[in-house]
């Protein structure tokens, strides 16, 4: 308790060695004393909030092992027997399909968002041509408005294209709505890159597009990773677009629900079917990939998201 040992350097920031100075020591000691009482409080608050985050999630996971009757009874019963049948049951209700649909959509939409976003941002940030500023502001303006503003016409546009409840339709819409932020972010990123290397490549006879793909894009990797994470999270969590655009058009239409939509439908149906454990198990299944990805990349996720908003 006497010497604090845990240091947490900022992601990406080098740890600065601070030279201890005799003169400040006394003042710092006083600062420290006032902190002794505060420390109890601050740890209290932090632990309380941590419990508030972890408890509901852990409770849901444990609840998936309970019986339906137990869930309806008291919140504090413990599962009688730990059986994994419930996960099988949840999987059969379509969770696997929802995951697959989401992955199919996102592989294309995130890749193409990054490609088109980087192309547009690159040209807008590094080439002078008439209308450059206008196009840039047109893109930036799109980042400001919530998506359901455009929902009514968008629905009918996708319908007229015959792309309701198709992967292509949703992929195209995801790309379009992810472009404003991607262009905005990468625009400022490409501006910070040195011009010398690019110029050298051009002098060596590199074409414009080759310079982009082989010189600039690799240099922009940190920026691309940040925006990539942003887009993955954003599209993974998208709810209103699939809800509007991916509804079954006819009874025989293939179910292409993505995870958010499918899980939500399941939740609404469950109210009648009364298989709460399966619903909780489904949620646990949906949560595991997020948890794994988050825990393995949490540094990059946090650094990427903050870099995106600080600009």
């Amino acid at each position, binding site marked *: 308790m006497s010497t*604090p*040992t845990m*240091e*947490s350097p900022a992601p990406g920031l080098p740890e600065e060695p*601070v030279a201890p100075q005799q*003169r400040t020591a006394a*003042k*710092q000691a*006083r*600062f*420290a004393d006032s*902190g002794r009482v505060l*420390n109890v409080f*601050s*740890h209290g*608050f*932090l632990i309380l909030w941590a419990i508030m*985050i*972890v408890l509901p999630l852990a*409770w*849901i996971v444990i609840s998936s092992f309970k019986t339906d009757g137990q869930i*309806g009874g*008291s*919140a*504090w019963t413990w599962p009688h027997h730990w059986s994994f049948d419930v996960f099988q049951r949840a999987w059969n209700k379509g969770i696997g399909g929802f995951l697959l649909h989401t992955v199919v959509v996102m592989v294309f939409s995130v890749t193409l968002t990054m490609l*088109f976003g980087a*192309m*547009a941002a*690159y*040209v*807008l940030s590094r080439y002078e041509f008439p209308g450059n500023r206008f196009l840039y502001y047109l893109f930036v303006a*799109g980042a*400001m408005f*919530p998506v*359901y*503003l*455009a*929902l*009514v*016409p968008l*629905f009918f*546009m996708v319908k007229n294209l015959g792309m309701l409840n198709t992967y292509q339709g949703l992929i195209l819409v995801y790309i*379009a*709505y992810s*472009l404003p932020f991607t262009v905005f972010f990468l625009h400022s990123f490409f501006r910070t890159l040195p011009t010398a290397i690019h110029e050298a490549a051009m002098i060596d006879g590199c074409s414009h597009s080759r310079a982009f793909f082989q010189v600039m894009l690799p240099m922009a990797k940190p920026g691309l990773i940040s925006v990539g994470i942003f887009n993955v999270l954003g599209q*993974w969590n998208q*709810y209103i677009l699939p809800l509007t655009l991916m509804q079954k058009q006819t009874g025989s239409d293939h179910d292409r629900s993505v*995870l958010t939509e*499918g899980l939500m439908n399941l939740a609404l149906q469950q109210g009648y079917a009364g298989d709460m454990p399966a619903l909780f198990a489904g949620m646990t299944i*949906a*949560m595991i990939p*997020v*948890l794994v*990805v*988050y825990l393995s990349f*949490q540094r990059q*996720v*946090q650094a990427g*998201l903050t870099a995106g908003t*600080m600009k």
Partner: protein
Amino acid sequence: MRRNSKYPFIVGFLIVPVALYAALVLWPYIQTIGYSFTDWSGESQKMNFVGFKNYTTLFSDTVFRQALWHNILLLIFLPVITILLALFFAFLLNVGGRGGTAGIHGVRGSAFYKVVFFFPQVLSVAILVVLFEAVYRSDSGGLLNGILIKLHLENADKPIEWLSDPSLVLWCILAILVWSGVGFYLVLFSAAMQSIPKEIYEAALLDGSGRGQTFFRVTMPLLWDSIQTAWVYLAIAAMDAFALVSALTPGVSYGGGPDHHSEVLSTVLMRNFLYAGKSGYACAMGVIILLLTLILSIVTLRVTRRERIEF
């Protein structure tokens, strides 16, 4: 020769992203404005120009006015509560630790807290819905009721019906938004705090300032830029809240109940559009939301404009 060859490249790189963006984002926004002056039902292409009739109807529509008021409440409370909590936690985690010879740093285990607090941010909204449906269950099987009964703060025979209680439902939704949002802004503010040079804090210490003073006189002003960013992001989130309200609260289609006590603009819009077939009317709502967002951004930028502090 080279000067001329850049235009095909520019056009080639811009054509796909701009076309996609214009067709699927900009054009629907513009159409929304156009449709808002018609009595379009959405079913057929038949529509009549009705001038401002939709808008005048809107303001005598009590459900719409209620929804507008709820959005305003969220606009006030969501940013204030989230930012205060996030600032408080960020301060504890970055500067709140006990001083010593090592200088300024966070409390013990701050890296751990950051990881845990941020986690809800990566959970998809469907998971939030399932989770909080269970937390807010109206019988003693709900987590919240379970805790209150355990603490003898509530009668086990008459548990609180969180989401069906007209005076509680909106605050329940607000709590979810705060719960899931604090971690992100904590990390955002942490990044900003860590970019503040330690010498500034040491100088403040030498001048004998305590924790409170350090926070209000040093940290807050230097963080003003990030607070402003956070405010804008939270305001956009407060204007949305669609998924939570539509899936968690009672109501015929897209929630909003009981008796419209949790109605927000987005749910009213969706009900009119997809359920009642009043597309023109829904578009008018979209335009109102657009105007609100615009006003909001301008006000936020004006009110929070301060002299930028360079360090």
